[in-house]
């Protein structure tokens, strides 16, 4: 789809620390966060980064706890690249790219202890809230990882817990209150091509990327997750430098997302 000529051009630019759309290496495209975009979700958000669009819906169901964690709610993260999102256009069970993205976002939220899962118990050992974090990629113009991470966190901030009747069945349209959150985590990703590290690539720029490093950053500055993706490699220095950069970059998103 993307010609070798285009790729060569992008590489030449990058080596001069330049980008086709004039951005700096660490500069994001315009990021738009909309919350409460779906009436039938307990929480939802749409994030656009340039032309990239990701929507996330949070659904809550009464379920069973894991046997080894009888006093905690359950979180299940699902990621689907809608066929419309890109020209690969594949319907079917989730592929490895969808699974990796879903699991990386999941780990950021889970390891950062974002949700106060102890408060999601309905009957200890028997009934707890199951929280579905459903991520849909609507349009892929690069940097899905960051769009998904921001959208998932944004959707959680507006999620309400449904009210239950005496049989523990959901009363439609009524809510107990907001989903209790302990923390805010945003995972951001550094990308590497030709030994240059930069942020927020477009779909075109992704065609020349060797590797990515996703870092889960919490509002208290803690790192809660790392994931090196793709075939390229990193030096220790590159990793440390990237983490430092993303810790800083995450701050305004963390602020913006809880607004």
């Amino acid at each position, binding site marked *: 789809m993307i010609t070798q000529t285009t790729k060569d051009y992008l590489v030449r630019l990058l080596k001069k620390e330049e980008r086709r759309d004039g951005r700096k290496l660490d500069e994001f495209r315009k990021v738009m966060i909309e919350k409460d975009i*779906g009436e039938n979700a307990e929480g939802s958000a749409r994030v656009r980064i340039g032309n990239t669009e990701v929507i996330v819906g949070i659904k809550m169901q009464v379920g069973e706890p894991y046997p080894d964690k009888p006093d905690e709610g359950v979180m299940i993260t699902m990621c689907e690249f*809608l*066929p*419309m999102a890109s020209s690969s256009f594949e319907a079917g069970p989730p592929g490895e790219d969808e699974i990796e993205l879903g699991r990386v976002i999941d780990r950021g939220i889970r390891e950062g202890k974002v949700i106060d899962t102890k408060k999601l118990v309905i009957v200890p050992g028997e009934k707890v809230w199951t929280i579905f974090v459903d991520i849909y990629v609507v*349009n892929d113009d690069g940097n899905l990882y960051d769009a998904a991470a921001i959208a998932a966190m944004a959707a959680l901030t507006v999620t309400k817990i449904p009210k239950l009747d005496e049989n523990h069945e959901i009363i439609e349209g009524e809510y107990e209150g907001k989903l209790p959150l302990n923390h805010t985590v945003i995972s951001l990703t550094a990308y590497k091509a030709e030994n240059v590290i930069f942020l927020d690539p477009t779909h075109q720029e992704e065609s020349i990327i060797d590797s990515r490093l996703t870092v889960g950053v919490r509002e208290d500055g803690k790192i809660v997750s790392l994931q090196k993706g793709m075939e390229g490699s990193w030096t220790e220095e590159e990793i440390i430098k990237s983490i430092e950069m993303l810790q800083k970059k995450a701050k305004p998103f963390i602020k913006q997302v809880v607004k």
Partner: protein
Amino acid sequence: MVKKIKRSDGRAPDELRKPYIIKAGVVKRAQGSALVQSGKTIVIAAVYGPKKVIPKHLEDRDKAILRCRYNMITFSVKDRKKPGPDKRSVEISKVIANALSRVVMLEEYPRTLIDVDLEVIQADAGTRVAALTAASVALADAGIAMKDLMPAVAAGRANGQILLDLTKEEEDAEDAVDMPFAYIPSTGEITLLQMDGIVDLNEIKKMIDLAKKGAQQIYELQVKALKERYAALATLSEVVK
């Protein structure tokens, strides 16, 4: 012909929901796309193709294969929809593809595949007709050769009244009838017709007549959406991308 009794959302029996919005070009990567919003129902359509058929033995040497996927996202409905196709979505995908085949000039693109993705983002009844309405706009937006656009709308009955474009609340009435309908105004061809509920022939006639009028209004919105899209593109191309 239709009595002017107000509905719970204030509409006349022969009125489309408000807002009723059609917008082309909403999915940037796609060759063509469209969004239809009918009240609380929101559907996005996107088109990729014509493209190579893989594996090759599935190709049709006389015409393009038109493949539709109708899908409800998990949080489009109150009870989380399990991901993946179910029998309902397989049937709807099929009747939509069948209807579209009447306007898309498939014989212009032999040995290829045209993919149409139809995603229900929010569901409040009428999702298949919204999807079909969006699909023909998206196909036109993709520059696929077509004989005409194809508006689709449901007519039905609730609480004793023949109604256009029912909401979920109306569909839940005791005596509800739902009749999804698609239509080519220029030829009078009915290309999609389904119905659930207990009626007599006279009511079917009334529903079809009502649906035709609704389809005509939607057709105009489809044309308008494409004009706005072309205008936007023209402006864009003047500016030079």
